[in-house]
């Protein structure tokens, strides 16, 4: 079921202060899509999700409208919206067994629509089978691990076969490995059951891996909404670029096509003036000698092999904050990297977000290698 959000604004009155949680936001979600709302805390992503669920109401004065398919649900009570909601800390009913938790939605239905207890039992067991927890049906939530609890809460949310599934930081409180597994499993479930989902996260990796489209939010605004590939490769603005991954800064004075910063030099095709260039860690190459275009002397201060690549921390007098470079294991061995070693950083590409054009990224390739 498609979801259409029109002019969803929200403010909170705290004491005499009025804080804007959401600028009026517009968002169209297609049927069967999995959308990630990504942003730092306080960006309004959870507020938006709760408004979609009906747990919070949008400001009425901005003309807010929420539609599920053809149904206008703006004024429909959360009880009748028929959304599945998965809470960050699971919110399982602590005094009920796993079975009773999952069955709850079915047992509170009006008597004339309610399935028989036999049907309920069969359906709950199917759901528990789906989340691979049949053998724990008689346990209490406190006896389960975090990952198991989250799976119960997912089964509970799916028991009423909602068309819309909303997840508030579903994996936030879990450890990395469990998180990875649950993510894959949720993606699989989503594709199989075909509901439309919105999930909230502050983890870029999670958003990029799981979503069909990512909505990056900050300060109550949607900064960009696009496929994970597009937001990563073509960030709409500096915030999106910085939020989606580690960033190295290079700030200096450009004169006659050369950017100077202390003893560092870099050829750039830019007009004269102060410039700030941004580079991703994988866009920094390390070399024994400078190139004709770049002469950026750095010292290796830390080396940590993480998975497929090696993360190298670089410092220099001309750098305010240390840089981070990721190199392949082959390069790491070839360069024979050691702490304290002096090398040259060579940018493969860089990005800039000129102050005058805040909405456009400008990129350039500085080095063919």
């Amino acid at each position, binding site marked *: 079921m498609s979801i259409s959000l029109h002019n969803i604004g929200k403010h909170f009155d705290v004491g005499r202060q009025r804080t804007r949680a959401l600028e009026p936001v517009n968002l169209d979600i297609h049927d069967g899509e999995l959308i990630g709302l990504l942003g730092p805390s306080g960006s309004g992503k959870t507020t938006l999700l709760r408004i979609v669920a009906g747990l919070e109401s949008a400001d009425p004065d901005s003309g807010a409208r929420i539609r599920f398919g053809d149904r206008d649900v703006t004024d429909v009570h*959360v009880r009748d919206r028929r959304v599945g909601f998965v809470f960050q800390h699971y919110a399982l*009913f602590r005094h009920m067994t796993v079975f009773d938790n999952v069955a709850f939605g079915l047992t*509170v239905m009006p008597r004339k629509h309610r399935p028989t207890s036999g049907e309920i039992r069969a359906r709950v067991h199917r759901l528990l089978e789906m989340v691979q927890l049949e053998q724990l049906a008689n346990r209490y*939530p406190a006896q389960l691990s975090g990952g198991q609890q989250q799976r119960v809460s997912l089964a509970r949310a799916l028991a009423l076969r909602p068309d819309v599934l909303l997840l508030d930081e579903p994996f936030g409180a879990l450890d990395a490995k469990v998180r990875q597994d649950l993510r894959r499993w949720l993606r699989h479930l989503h594709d199989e059951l075909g509901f439309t989902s919105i999930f909230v996260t502050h983890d870029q990796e999670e958003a990029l891996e799981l979503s069909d489209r990512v909505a990056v939010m900050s300060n109550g605004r949607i900064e960009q909404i696009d496929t994970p590939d597009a937001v990563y490769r073509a960030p709409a603005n500096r915030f999106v670029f910085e939020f989606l991954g580690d960033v190295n800064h290079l700030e200096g004075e450009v004169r006659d096509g050369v950017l100077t910063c202390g003893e560092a030099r870099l050829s750039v095709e830019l007009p004269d003036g102060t410039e700030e260039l941004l580079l991703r860690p994988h866009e920094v190459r390390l070399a024994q000698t400078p190139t004709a275009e770049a002469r950026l002397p750095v010292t290796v201060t830390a080396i940590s092999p993480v998975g497929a690549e090696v993360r190298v921390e670089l410092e220099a007098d001309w750098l305010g904050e240390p840089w981070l470079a990721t190199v392949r294991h082959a390069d790491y061995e070839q360069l024979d990297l050691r702490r304290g070693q002096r090398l040259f950083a060579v940018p493969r590409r860089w990005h800039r977000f000129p102050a005058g054009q805040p909405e456009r990224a400008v990129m350039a390739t500085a080095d063919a290698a």
Partner: protein
Amino acid sequence: MQRIGDAPAVRRGLILAAVALSALFLLLPLVAIFAQAFAQGMAVFWTNVSNEYTVAAIGLTLFITVLTIPVCLVFGVALAWLVTRFQFPGRRVLQTLIDIPFAVSPVVAGLIYLLLYGRNGWLGGLLDGHDIQLMFAWPGILMVTIFVTCPFVARELIPLMQAQGSREEEAAVTLGAPGWTIFRRVTLPNIRWALLYGVILTNARAVGEFGAVSVVSGAIRGQTNTLPLHLEQLYQDYNTVGAFASAALLALIALLTLAAKAGLEWRAARQEAHA
């Protein structure tokens, strides 16, 4: 390894002091009450307890308590719900107001009620015109007892409900549960132990209340005398055994209350282990 402040001498000294003080101030008086009550044997004790006025006082005390508890229960749950689930101007003030009955001396509370609802009082004059008498009758006793005991349930519930938050109720409502069902199946089971504990405290206070009740009751023997008032009268009349027989009854109720409380805590702790 020795922890800080865990020197053997200090530990032994503290334990000894605690035991000695408890025995002197808590245990000894309790023993004395029962010793006095049974000083002249079981028969005399029984004669005193089955005295017409004592039975009437016991009856009135139980009657007031039975009426007080449901009122305090509903009031406490509603108030705790309001304060922990909603944000509204004056919420903090309301939370402070709950404590007024604790802060005010019960005698003062009794006097205020007398001033308001007595025959010459602001509202009492009006009621008197309709031939309704609240003071120096059981309705007055009930009113001040409710005043004195109303914070107990709310005080027990508010911290618990604040800590538990409203996530489970939100989950229930997204699953389509109507308001009353949410209360019955989600909220109530989560607060039941605190609720029962609050009721036990309410009960203990309602049975034992003296100050406020003594002002509004008029202490008419056989009519408006509660057990604590009756006890005091017996003592004033130099009927020591009679007074201690009544005292023993009150102490017994207190001990039963304590036992119920301990039982509840034990059950709650067991519940905690799996829920």
